[in-house]
């Protein structure tokens, strides 16, 4: 038993390095996708202190809108533009109808409001597009579909899906773009000011309402990118919403307010989950992927309660 736990997995890793590399790659891709969802959470949490549970359903909603429009005869790129517009309308609507009346309420109330929003979007999405899983329009959008097999060692093969590589590249580009947006533009600076202190930001003439709409729109764009990437790997369906819960351990690992934290946390969870499942999962009957991420996050939290990159919490009486 002890041998199975402590020695055998490592022997396997050493003897079949190609399989190990494949597992690492899978973990990397899963981690990138978790990180993308987590990124949407972080954007909104930073600017408004709202823990946006609806991010998962926004991913599904964006993907469904894109595919649904295309199915009804709208050309792919036009559908993409229209989806972006739809996310903009959603962002404005959320800010106007949900967030503005709830300013200054306790965290838990805002959290519940976003869960209410989740229910609403689930109902709305199913009402408009139907509940069946849909095929993502990967080719129409000009995304690569094939795969490359890289020879490794004497007889090993590592298979890389092109769409995964594209996902990684897009994720990196998006983080870079967000970094520039936050640090170099006027709106980005206003966003950071709002994140630091709502009242101080208001007093120097920054419009909170406008900033929140922008943040929700940015989160919507991130959701759209995530929806496309994830939809290309599997189908676009409401099951994705459950996967979005995986972004939560990523968040607490990285800290709620840190963009690099979201990325690093995503990668840790992605790697840990795949390696754990494939090398140790068999010992307890498999399927440990569903909770391993939370346990990893829990263990990290016991040592750093504010996450890896979170701001230190100082409590005073």
């Amino acid at each position, binding site marked *: 038993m002890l041998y199975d736990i402590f020695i055998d997995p490592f022997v396997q890793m050493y003897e079949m390095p190609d399989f190990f590399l494949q597992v690492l790659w899978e973990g990397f891709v899963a981690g990138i996708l978790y990180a993308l969802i987590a990124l949407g959470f972080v954007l909104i949490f930073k600017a408004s202190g709202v*823990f946006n549970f609806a991010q998962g359903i926004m991913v599904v909603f964006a993907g469904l809108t894109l595919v649904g429009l295309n199915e009804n005869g709208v050309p792919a790129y036009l559908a993409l533009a229209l989806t972006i517009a739809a996310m903009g309308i959603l962002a404005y609507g959320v800010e106007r*109808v*949900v967030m503005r*009346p*709830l300013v200054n*309420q*306790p*965290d*838990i*109330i805002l*959290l*519940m*409001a976003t*869960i*209410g*929003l*989740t*229910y*609403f*979007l*689930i*109902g*709305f999405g*199913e*009402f408009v597009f139907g*509940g069946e899983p849909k095929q993502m329009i990967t080719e129409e959008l000009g995304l690569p579909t094939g795969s490359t097999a890289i020879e490794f060692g004497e007889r090993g093969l590592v298979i890389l899906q092109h769409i995964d590589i594209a996902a990684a590249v897009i994720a990196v580009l998006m983080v870079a773009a967000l970094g520039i947006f936050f640090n170099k533009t006027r709106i980005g600076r206003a966003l950071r000011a709002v994140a630091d202190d709502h009242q101080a930001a208001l007093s120097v003439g920054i419009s909170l309402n406008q900033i929140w709409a922008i943040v929700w729109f940015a989160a919507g764009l991130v959701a759209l990118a995530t929806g496309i990437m994830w939809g290309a790997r599997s189908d676009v369906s409401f099951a994705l919403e*459950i996967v979005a*819960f995986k972004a*939560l*351990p990523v*968040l*607490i690992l990285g800290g*709620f307010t840190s963009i690099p934290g979201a990325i690093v946390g995503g990668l840790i969870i992605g790697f840990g989950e795949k390696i754990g499942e494939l090398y140790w999962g068999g010992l*307890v*009957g*498999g*399927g*440990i992927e*569903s*909770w391993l991420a*939370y*346990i990893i*996050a*829990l263990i990290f*939290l*016991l040592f750093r*309660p*504010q*996450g890896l990159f979170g701001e230190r919490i100082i*409590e005073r*009486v």
Partner: protein
Amino acid sequence: MFYREAGQFKTSYKADQALMPILQDRVGLLVILAVAFVVIPVFANDFFLTSIMIPFLVFSLAAIGLNVLTGFCGQLSLGTGAFMGVGAYAAYKLTSIFPDANVILMVLLSGVFSAAIGAVFGLPSLRIKGLYLAVTTLAAQFFLEWCFIRIPWLYNYNASGAIEIPHREAFGVVVSGAEATPIVRYFIVLGITALIAYLMANVLRGRIGRSWMMIRDMDIAAELMGIRPLQTKLMAFAVSSYICGVAGAMMVFFWLNAAEPSSYSISLSFQILFMVILGGLGSLSGAFMGAAFIWILPVFLKFIPGTIGINVAAETVEHITFMIVGALIIFFLIVEPHGFARLWQIAKQKLRVWPFPY
């Protein structure tokens, strides 16, 4: 005018510290109890009992359980569904191991198991707070759900992977299994819910409940005043999980008859959390009001298209129900973030001063 306590003098400490010092409250409670114990059993049909009253009572109890933890002790939890599941599986195992024992006793005993597991998952709450804690309770949710699927011993190696409630008798009547009549089930569920609600009403205004509220309001200050955070928080987790466990066991024994692991999924946790928040954090009556709203409203919505003569597909109705429930949740949060309990208090104040505005 209608709700005026003027003239009701107390002549002893006992009367002053009674659970309900105001006469109108006592009368109101008696009326509600009379309706629940006499009027509904006499007049209600089986459909009303099985698909409205029994689930409503079960969810009310679960909401009371979560309210103890979230409303009174301030620890946000998203693992309620799993703790209910622990109760259900524990009761199922207990009654398969001891087939001759009284099944109601087994249901009450099953809460002990979920209390123990709840206390274990409550341990991180000593270091982790707020939303971070909410996410760690998700660990409990997903881990326990996985256990329900992967440990076949829990469901007696059934091929279907679900638990099916066996035929059991107590006090000479069939109380569980497919033959049990709705009226018997209703009385058992009502009895247990009323009993636990009564006990909690007293616990919450006593020393234990007050120490929970101190931890909720400011934990460091509470610690300085001699409240031990470890015991207090773990007790809140244990008591809350006990109540949720009993509710979960009742859910399968007296309502569903059979349960799969997916019956106790995360969506159940959210449903209970909604009941607590909409009903009002830190209010027992709020738990009942929240459960009534979240459970009865969708049932009600399902019948609207049929009664006004529009023919809509069942799926569409379900989707629209989702939309309406989501929208109403946001609406009520905006109108009154403190829930129905606060609305009821405002209404009582209006009644007190009626016909004058103040």
